[in-house]
């Protein structure tokens, strides 16, 4: 057991922690004349926290991620609940159908969403056909709303699966017991099903938030100028400005937020009655 543990931790350290640390350590260096000076400093962090445009992008992105999580919590819960109510044979099929997009290339999914949201896209066709709009709406693409919609759709499986799993774990006899004691369907849902499956929702919201707040591709491809997010900011430091130390410092801040969210979700998603 001990030997296995050592091997496991050794691998984790060698392939995850060491590369990560050797990258993050750049956040404490700085750049002079396009070359990195390997002397420790907190200048990058001072720069980020005192610069208005960095701060604005940071909070705009966190807010957008929060919104995506909230939308997905509602959509994802409804989807998971719908699947859960199907007969068992259907359930497995639907869960697999939901998980298939997870195996597909991320960039293809985003291009697909671009096709849906575009001026001649599926969404506009539907809106036109239903008579909701008279001419195609161009406001569906290349803004922050497009990023919200795209991320909501692409990240939905991360919300649905944990909620579905926690619904699946509710024993049938517990639902029978609620009915047996006089609870109607609505009361059973509100008093038993919802509280027992909410930990799954919290885990899903955590996934969605962390993935949305750090995402770079979706804002880059559907976000336009308005959709300039923190992920794009980090990318620009590495890919455009060649300021690795600033990029690493920006990444460290995002990582702190992500770790904090994971910690909170662990506390909320593991209520007292489960321990």
């Amino acid at each position: 057991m001990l030997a296995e543990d050592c091997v496991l931790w050794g691998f984790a350290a060698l392939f995850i922690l060491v590369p990560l640390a050797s990258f993050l350590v750049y956040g404490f260096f700085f750049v002079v004349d396009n070359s990195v000076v390997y002397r420790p400093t907190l200048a990058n962090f001072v720069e980020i926290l005192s610069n208005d445009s960095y701060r604005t992008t940071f909070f705009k992105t966190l807010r957008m991620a929060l919104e995506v999580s909230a939308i997905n919590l509602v959509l994802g819960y409804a989807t998971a609940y719908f699947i859960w109510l199907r007969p068992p044979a259907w359930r497995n099929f639907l869960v697999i159908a939901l998980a298939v997009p997870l195996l597909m290339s991320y960039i293809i999914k985003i291009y697909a969403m671009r096709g849906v949201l575009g001026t001649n896209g599926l969404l506009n066709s539907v809106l036109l056909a239903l008579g909701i709009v008279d001419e195609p709406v161009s406001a569906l693409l290349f803004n922050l709303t497009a990023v919200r919609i795209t991320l909501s759709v692409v990240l939905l499986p991360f919300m649905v699966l944990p909620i579905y799993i926690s619904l699946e774990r509710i024993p049938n006899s517990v639902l029978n017991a609620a009915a047996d004691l006089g609870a109607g369907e609505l009361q059973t849902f509100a008093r038993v099903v919802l509280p027992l499956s909410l930990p799954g929702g919290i885990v899903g919201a955590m996934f969605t938030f962390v993935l949305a707040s750090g995402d770079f591709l979706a804002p880059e491809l559907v976000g336009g100028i308005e959709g300039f997010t923190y992920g794009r900011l980090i990318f620009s430091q590495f890919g455009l400005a060649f300021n690795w130390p600033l990029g690493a410092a920006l990444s460290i801040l995002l990582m702190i937020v992500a770790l904090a969210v994971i910690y909170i979700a662990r506390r909320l998603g593991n209520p007292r009655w489960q321990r």
Partner: protein
Amino acid sequence: MANHETGGLAANQDLPLLRIRGLGVRFGTFNAINPLDLDVRDGEFLTILGPSGSGKTTLLRAIAGFQAPSEGGIEFDGRDIADMPINRRPFNTVFQDYALFPHMTVRENVSFGLRVRGTGRKRLNDRVDSALGIVGLEELGARYPSQLSGGQQQRTALARAMICEPRLILLDEPLAALDAALRRQMQNFLKSVQRQSGITFLFVTHDQSEATTMSDRICVMRSGSIEQIGTPRDLYYRPKSKFVASFFGASNIIEPCEVIDARNDVTSVRTAVGTFAVAGPAPEGGSGLALAVRPEAFGIGNGKPVNQVELTVVSVSFIGSETITELRHRDASLEFKMKTRSDPAASPPAPGSVLTVGFDPAECALVSGDRG
């Protein structure tokens, strides 16, 4: 209640609390329950006893409403409830796995039935306090189910089922998950709660001794049908079939046997190992019969019982207060088991020796052989 207040009408007082008529449950082509009738009397402790696959749990689930019957009717207190939704049925269930709500404390679990009915706080707290008092969990109200022992979870489930003061509680093998010592303790506890509350208990188990200790009446089920209903004494001393006889421990079955004489409430039967007298009248349709004798009915030689048979000792096992002797008849290859009080003075018979074994006509029963 109304029946008792109006007094005079004896017929009304005999009306069963739960009346099942022609109830059947089919899964595809498989008959889980063949159409059957069953009456549960007000205030009794009735146990449905049977091996797994006998349909006992399906029957209970049909009564509770978790399983839609394929045919037949269920009446509760004179009202047809066969199509009534689960949450409207006027009785409650204790589940095999307790089915406590894991996210609620003991108090919240117990008060659930009152809360869904919108009972006021004062009344609710009084009722919960009294229910927790009955099951002895006053101190543990703030615990979550995961913090309770099996027995405590069991008590919580019982309090939860009792909180709405139902006239009938259904119990689905509630003791199956407990260890032997705790189970015995809970048997006594359940029985005393039932007696004191006067609530009718319909209890399902596969454990014959559990059914015998707790019940006023036992309904033995086998392959989806009722084999026999009666008091524990009835089933123990007067089983009607080979199945019930061996279920209740009358493991010595002598068959075939043929009625040769019946008078004065004593029936004489002829078997391959001799002719015996059996107390009671011969069963109707007297073919395909078997003679069932309890291991403890056998005695060695003395006392001159009416029925005697010579048997060879195969083995002797001493199990403390009792000694079990395995015996074989010399001609017919019939094996017998005899359970006697261990005697510190006498040495046990040696294997191979021949004993004259006797049993009383009142301690054996004529039963029907296997169906079909």
